């Protein structure tokens, strides 16, 4: 069943290849319909999900047994929320893309392919399958930027591809390292998790974690390997940016959590302070640079670095904790997963808004905008809601996540947590100050006739807004699912003497 969920968008995409490109309506509705079905499917998975730390909905097919490579997918409490978030963000992107006309057929098909690869990363239980989906998602995203991007799309697309491919290669080295160190000579994630092949492996283990870490850090991205992100976001089409920020970035943090922390616990603990400091720098640097941006889209791009920084900081702190603070560690890990979900929904929405703004004005520059709340009040209102959600106002998903991360981190490493709180402050300033430049103040006459949100834009915004408000107000159903799985990771990291 899980494989149907995984490959449905891909197969649908293949079928769509057969339809001639002139039927615009078919493609538009096919995208919305299929991704909508995926959301329902994900909700259905919630219904059948039993709260426990184990893997559920597993599907296993032998592939290359000689090399220990098998097709194995499944869900646990960490992947289920991420998969659901992926389905929702894709649905919102498809609804948003209702107005898309340029090369619609390829556009819809590529996004459907991309959906399968994104789901695949979170569902994979075999490192090679994981790597395969990871790399394919890069390639599809590369084409999306290249074909539908803005003016400097070629440069941004190639930069994105090459930069993140370097990360992929490093990740591959790490994966092969894990394989070679494992007794069973297997790429199976569950087996590796159970075996902990890097235990007592000294220098080799550290190098493997380094290789994995570089791969994940580039994807997340953390300071100082984040510089591919702003140009990619600025040049990508809005729906592409929403997917890139909302989902692709999560692969990095998901990898840190599942593979870095889970499969190299000893090394993670040893180098936890490095990871934590990188997270801390990302938080402050991302927030400050976001404040100094001149364009809306670059602003959102840099806030992502800040938001992902909280996760890296928290996971670093988990490694620094003694065995006595098990509850705080679980709290942080749960918070990190919540943060991934929150960031996917909120930032996905903010990127869709940048697209709506660009369609109306042809620019992202604050300098040319201003006072737009006069002509597009509903748009301004929604953007304001997303912005306050993004800087962590209570009642929205980010607060739930950041509260857990901070409560845990301050408990383990007080100074780091307190310094990181400055990031929460600055990021609020970045949003308030810069959004006021778009919507408040004097307005240029040329925007006088700007139209407010169209119905399909409204639907996409409402879908995401309601999602992150529900998580923000009543998160217990989500936390309950995540918690056993984070407890399992806490146990792994605490078994090290």
């Amino acid at each position, binding site marked *: 069943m899980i494989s149907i969920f995984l490959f449905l968008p891909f197969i649908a995409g293949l079928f769509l290849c057969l339809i001639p490109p002139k039927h615009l309506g078919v493609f538009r509705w096919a995208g919305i319909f299929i991704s909508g079905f995926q959301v329902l499917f994900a909700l259905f998975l919630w219904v059948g999900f039993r709260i426990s730390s184990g893997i559920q909905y597993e599907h296993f097919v032998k592939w290359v047994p000689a090399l220990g490579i098998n097709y194995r997918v499944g869900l646990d409490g960490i992947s289920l929320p991420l998969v659901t978030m992926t389905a929702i963000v894709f649905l919102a992107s498809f609804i948003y893309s209702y107005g898309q006309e340029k090369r619609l057929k390829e556009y819809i098909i590529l996004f459907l392919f991309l959906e399968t690869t994104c789901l695949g990363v979170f569902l994979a239980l075999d490192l090679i399958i994981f790597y395969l989906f990871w790399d394919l998602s890069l390639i599809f995203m590369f084409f999306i930027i290249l074909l539908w991007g803005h003016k400097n799309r070629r440069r941004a697309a190639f*930069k994105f591809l*090459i*930069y993140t491919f370097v990360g992929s290669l490093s990740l591959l080295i790490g994966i092969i390292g894990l394989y070679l160190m494992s007794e069973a000579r297997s790429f199976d994630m569950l087996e590796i998790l159970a075996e902990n092949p890097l235990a007592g492996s000294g220098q080799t283990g550290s190098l493997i974690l380094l290789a994995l870490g570089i791969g994940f850090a580039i994807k997340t991205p953390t300071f*100082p390997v984040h*510089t591919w992100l*702003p140009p990619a976001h600025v040049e990508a089409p809005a729906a592409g940016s929403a997917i890139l920020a909302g989902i692709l970035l999560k692969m990095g943090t998901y990898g840190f959590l599942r593979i870095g922390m889970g499969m190299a616990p000893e090394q993670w603990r040893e180098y936890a302070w490095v990871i934590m400091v990188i997270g801390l720098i990302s938080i402050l*640097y991302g927030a*400050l*640079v*976001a*404040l*100094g*941006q*001149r364009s809306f889209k670059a602003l959102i791009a840099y806030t992502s670095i800040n938001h992902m920084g909280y996760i890296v900081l928290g996971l670093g702190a988990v490694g620094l904790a003694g065995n006595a*603070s098990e*509850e705080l560690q679980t709290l942080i890990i749960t918070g990190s997963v919540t943060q991934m979900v929150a960031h996917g929904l909120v930032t996905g929405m903010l990127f869709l808004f940048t697209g709506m703004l660009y369609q109306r004005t042809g620019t992202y520059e604050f300098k040319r905008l*201003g*006072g737009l*709340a*006069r002509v597009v*009040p*509903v748009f*301004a*209102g929604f953007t304001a809601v997303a912005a*306050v959600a993004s800087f962590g*106002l*209570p*009642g929205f998903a980010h*607060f*739930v996540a950041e*509260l*857990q991360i*901070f*409560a845990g*981190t*301050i*408990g*383990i490493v*007080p100074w780091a*947590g*307190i310094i990181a*709180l*400055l990031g*929460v*402050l600055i990021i*609020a*300033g970045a949003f*308030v*100050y810069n959004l*006021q430049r778009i*919507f*408040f*103040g*004097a307005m240029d006459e040329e925007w006088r006739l700007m139209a407010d949100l169209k119905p399909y834009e409204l639907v996409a915004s409402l879908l995401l807004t309601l999602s992150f408000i529900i998580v923000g107000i009543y*998160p*217990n159903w*989500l*936390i*309950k699912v995540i*918690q056993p799985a984070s407890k399992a990771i806490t146990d792994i990291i605490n078994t090290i003497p």
Partner: protein
Amino acid sequence: MSFIILTIPLLPIIAAIILLIAALLQRGKKLAFPLSIGVLIISLGLSIYASLNPLQIDLLWFEPISLSFKIDGLASIMQVTACLITIAVLTAAHDGLSKQNRARSFGFMLMLLAAALLASMTGSLLVLLISWEIMAIAIWQLSGFLWQNSQVANNGAKVFMLLRLGDMGLYVAVAVAFSVVGSFDIAAIAQTSGQDIHLITAGLVFSAVTKSAQLPFSIWLGRALNEKAHISGTLTGALLVVSGGYLLVRSFEILELAAWALPLLAWTGGLTAFIMALVALVQKDIRQILAASSASQKGFIIMAVGLGSMSAAVAFIVAHAAYKGLLFLGGSYFQIYSGSTQLSYLASDENELSNKKKTKSIGLILFSLAAFSLAGLPPLSGWIVKDDVLAEATQALYILGMLAGFITSLYAGRLFWIVYHSKINFPTLKISTNKNLTIWGMLLLSVMILAGSALLVPVVSESWETLIPGPKAPHPGIWQMSFIGLIAVAGLIISRKWHQQRQLEPFTVPYIPSAITTMLYNWLGMGKVLNGLVAAILSASRKFANFDVYVLDKTTESIAMFCVRTANKSAKDGENGIEGLVNGVTHLISKAGSAARIPQTGLLHNYYAQAVTVLCLFIIFILWFT
């Protein structure tokens, strides 16, 4: 049924959301006022009903974090006060606002009220943090209400950032408390021992000092209530006074654990009370006087907490809410009828609204009542609560408080005399006109002020004290009370003399050099510091942004380009190199081939000679090695 208390903040927040959505859709002009008043009255009724049976409920928000709400005497007092003040404030907002802005401003005011209601029924620090963050958003939007002007909007943003800075202190306290105690419950936190309590207390104190606009953070109040602020923005000041020292009263059990916290609070409060009273003395606009005065008065509240007298602090909060609310309403009342809150305008003989036939309107009388209460004139509530606060003060702090009280009566007197002698003819009470709701709000608040005098009756003050948790302070003696009353009277008389001497603005204070007056007028330069700080952070952030693009990104790119260049180079050199090597080898082989032909002479004896030579070499080789 216990969950009914949750509707107290829930109703206003839902109404606020409805109004804000309506505002985005350009609707709700007619709905705004009746809906808000209706919701307020229900909330008021509910909070009175809830006060009958104190209770605490804990709701699991998500594992392991729960939200706890608590209704006790303190909570009920705060809630009733907040509702009454807001009702009064809404009347002025109704009169002073153009219809277009109504839904939005009423929406944010209800949001502010809801946050205040939530804050007052908090049983845990987390709920307090949540309500404060919501409050900050409402204040941001109200103080930058006229967003069409980017300067006003930026002002609102600065206010918001200062408030959020204050929230961070509470955030730290919340996080530390949870990691140490495993709960946000104040009583549970107060049970802890060890070093962490200092961090928690520091967070709380920082938060309270910032939120209460104590020095050096007083400027946000001035910014929120500046001349350009919209009328609804000025009302935040009136509403916010209730939430001032509340955090400290609530978390007193924690503060007691850190020895340094209370003296620090007492001195911060005392100094703020004194210095901000001086600032209020020299302002030229009613709103700025009231803003500085609010900071100063909150100083008294913080001082009361620092002196360990909770009942006095709460009494001060309530009394101050009433008279300061009335003064704010008076300010907007004057603004509605004369178009200005500048003192020079009110004092001027030559304005278009001057009228020979001068009648003392009821608005003026009510305004005077509030001014007298602020001054501390016996037997008004302002006098009683000041007495209670100062009862516990030791020498130096007592003198500081006395001075602050004296200066307060000076600026209250100044306000009173200017308005009293103003030539502007304010209309008398007319129920029929639509524009006169403010008067009703003012009446409501003056009843509150007069009711406060009941605290003089021992039975009332004793039952008041049973409502407030925390330590009680002794009541001041009769001499002390008379002394404070005398000081207030003296202040009013002196200010009258000053008023007669220098009727017109600009106002200078005798005996104080003009340089100091200017500094005080400019809020001690706090505004400049704030602007400078904001500018510095912005320019730093631009530098960081440039660094990111021009240094970090370029470096990464140059590494990539280096790889590309190396590849190209190696492609070129390498190709030449390998080709050269291949060529060289071929050349050598062909040479060797030619050389190999040399011995092949075809002559037999030559071959024999060669064979012998090789054999000899072979034998030598063998011998050499064996």
